[in-house]
């Protein structure tokens, strides 16, 4: 099945047409991914959200749920360069950011020289598979790349591609020999996406697709330019002041010292979410509303993305860890305890 790639910029169109084109393109993108990935609609939407927000995503789920496939499919559908890094304990930072290699003198050259060989990080989409298996030293090699879109190697700073996106995966079960990500690095991820086990119908569909003769190839439907254009539109979407205030209240309520913090937060949370969490919520809510064809996000959008945006930014205290308190449960109570902020009447 061949699909036309949308490459031209749309911001010259009428805003309503632009909005409709945005939705149309996103729908095409999602449908294209769904041709390969069965079910996991929320995960797909979350990954697309990361793409459009320019934020990195951390996918967590047991092996075999199609995390890697999803990311690979996304890269294929967006016509972006893709590289995969399998994180292992012996992986070194240079394996990610690249290294300088010594080249013999060629004909005409006077001496041997060092040449920088870019690592796999120099791609639009980087799949950091099982990121928690690498040592902290290697994990931290990603920090600069994720936060600033550049890497420093061999004494030289090199810029990464415009549409740079790290999609990492980790396995929550096998904790033996793993190195939990440091909080600073976790905070760099826009969303932490929980990949749930597929339903029965989805499993049947997976079996049908993967064990039969038919194979589904993914075709690119949008290019980098269009992605950047979409990002621009997302940032232009207006947000009601009361919604911004609501997001802030939610974020503050995750801090145990805040007066509006619910009981669970006070009891089990050591540190609440950072301001990046609020940015992530608002940005993800905008994208969610755009995916729905709406101009501005709503309270429901914020609530919908809140868990993914904050769950990896909240650090439980010892008591919370010992009692196995789920962060999502804490966040659910936060949502329940923070009233929707309302502004006064119009003048």
């Amino acid at each position, binding site marked *: 099945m061949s699909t036309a790639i949308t490459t031209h910029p749309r911001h010259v169109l009428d*805003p309503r047409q632009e909005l409709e084109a945005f939705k149309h393109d996103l729908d095409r993108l999602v449908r294209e991914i769904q041709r390969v990935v069965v079910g996991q609609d929320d995960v797909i939407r979350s990954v697309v959200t990361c793409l459009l927000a320019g934020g990195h995503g951390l996918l967590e789920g047991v092996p075999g749920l199609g995390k890697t496939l999803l990311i690979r499919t996304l890269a294929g559908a967006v016509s972006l360069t893709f590289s995969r890094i399998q994180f292992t304990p012996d992986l070194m930072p240079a394996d990610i950011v690249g290294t300088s290699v010594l080249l013999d003198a060629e004909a005409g050259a006077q001496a041997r020289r060092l040449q920088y060989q870019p690592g796999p990080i120099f791609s639009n989409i980087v799949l950091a598979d099982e990121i928690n298996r690498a040592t902290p030293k290697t994990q931290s090699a990603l920090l600069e790349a994720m936060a600033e879109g550049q890497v420093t190697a061999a004494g030289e700073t090199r810029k990464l591609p415009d549409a740079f996106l790290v999609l990492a995966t980790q396995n929550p079960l096998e904790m033996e020999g793993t190195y939990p990500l440091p909080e600073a690095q976790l905070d760099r991820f826009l969303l932490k996406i929980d990949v749930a086990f597929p339903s029965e119908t989805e499993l049947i569909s997976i079996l049908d697709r993967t064990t039969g003769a038919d194979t589904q190839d993914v075709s690119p439907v949008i290019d980098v330019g269009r992605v950047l254009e979409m990002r621009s539109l997302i940032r232009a979407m207006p947000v009601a002041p009361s919604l911004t205030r609501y997001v802030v209240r939610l974020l503050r309520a995750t801090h145990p010292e805040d007066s509006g913090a619910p009981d669970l937060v006070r009891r089990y949370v050591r540190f609440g979410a950072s301001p990046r969490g609020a940015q992530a919520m608002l940005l993800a809510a905008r994208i969610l509303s755009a995916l729905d064809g709406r101009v501005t996000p*709503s309270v429901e959008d914020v609530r919908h993305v809140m868990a993914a945006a904050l769950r990896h930014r909240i650090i439980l205290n010892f008591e919370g860890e010992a009692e196995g308190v789920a962060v999502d449960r804490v966040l659910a109570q936060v949502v329940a305890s923070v009233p929707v902020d309302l502004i006064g009447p119009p003048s």
Partner: protein
Amino acid sequence: MIRVLRLLAVVRRRERLAAALVGLSRYALPAGLLIATGALLAERLLGAALQWGWAAVMPIFLVVAWAYVRPRPWRATARRIDEHYHLHDLLGSALELARVTTSDSRSRALIEILLVDAEAAAANCDPRRIVSFSFVKPRMLDAFAAFALVLAAMVPSVDADERDTSSSTVGAHVSHGSPGHETVDLSLAEPIRQDLRGLQRGEDDIAHMANAVLELLDALEHGTISVDEALANLEALERELANAEQRFETTLEDDPGMLEHGVEALADGLRSEDLTREAARALDEGRGQDAERALSESGQHAQTSEEHTAALERALANADRRLGEVADRKRDTASRLAEAERRLRREQKRNDSEDANDRERRLQQQRDRVDELRRQHEREQNAQRKLDELQRQAAQARDRNDSAEQRRRALDRLGRSAANAASTARTHQRLRHGREAMEEAKRFIRRSGQQGDANDRRKQQAKRFSKAAQGKRGKQGKSTLLVEGQIGDGEPDMMLDDDRPGDGQPGDHQDGQDGGDSSEAAGPSASDTMGTGSQEPFGDEHGIDVRPKNLRVTPHRGHGATRAEIIRTASQEGFAAEAYRDVYQDYRSFAQSTLDQESMPTSARKRVKRYFRMIQPRQ
């Protein structure tokens, strides 16, 4: 945004109406039922007016008012609509973003789209579906309130008589009783009523008492209460009055009688000029603040012309002179105090074979007497100082050596001092008048209870009086009232011309009058209905059948060189005062019965009352 705002307005109205309906069924209904129950019980058991039942509708007004005034943000209404129609905050965001200004053209364009979408969505929203009206289902509380109302309706009314006997509040319940008693003709009690109405003005205890006594008289006249009940109520009122007097007594620092005379003197002085007449009138009527204001205005007015200045000076000079007269009056409290202290010391030194208890009792009486005199002396001194101060301020206010501003300030101080003195004097005056009115009402009611034989008794009394006036004896040679009244004190002058300034009664007025010196100002003036028929006003002195206890007033028990001193000192022991009290009561009761049962000009009636007030024995 017109459609959005219109939709919001409609939904808000429905929200308020729905809130009112819920409030009515949840709160107003049970509250109204309970209030109605209370009102019904109050009417049945306490005799309260049934009009209080209207309070049962108050919760309705309160709930409706609350529903319409409670703050309800527009944004909340918008969110309610958005939630109902799953509009994802379309209307609410439009409402907010319509006021947001942004420099980004794409954002502006997107906001425009949002507003258009909101208008389109608002057109399709039905306010009736968003806010539906409903009542709260009846609860146990509602059933309980309704049941209580039904029970209250079955409670029988309690008669007014039962209530009167069970209640201790006098006057509050006498006017709503049920007729059932013999009515009493109180047409002759109109003067008492007039006095009481005069006392009714004000907010103090006396006004309350006067109001209660008037209600009592009305109830008695209509037969709502019996004479005995009226008397019982009057006694309760009397106790209240005694308490009020006691309270006034404890707060008293100056002698109110002296202050009263001082205020009268000041008013007299100010009355001499038109400029200050208003202040004088206010002082006469006890309106201290009005007097102060009027005096201040007079001072301002006086600055406008030399003529007015002179008038003010004349008025102040008169006031100064009159105040000086009052301040210079001799008072015997100091000598009486010295005498009482001397007597106490002598009593303490005396060591006879008298019973110890009797001696202790007598000593205690002496001590009390000394204390009382000491207090009185201090008050008189304080009052004296105040009068001197008034006099000095009056002098300052007309002193031409001072500047106009200094005189004005002095006049203001005079006004303030006079206002304070008038306030104390007025309270004292009202208490005294209240006591008199109370006693008169009591006597009147008591006599009306003996209405059957009252006329006969009065006739007999009048007959005895007539005989006495002709010099005849009573039965078994006993004296009549008139003869008793002539003992010692009666002067022929006291029965005569009432317009003449009084000469005073050397025998009585020191002990028998308020402040002891009022006779000088007004003089004894008596009704000519008393004693005019007597050809021998003094009677036969040797034939008087003096009661034994009168014989105890002997010179050797009194002290002093003159007879007056002996009688006065003896009266301090209590002998003569007691005897005089009896005589006084007889005369007074006879005069009162005449006043009550015969039509008399008000001026004559007041004159009689004033006379008896002047000669009444000291408490």
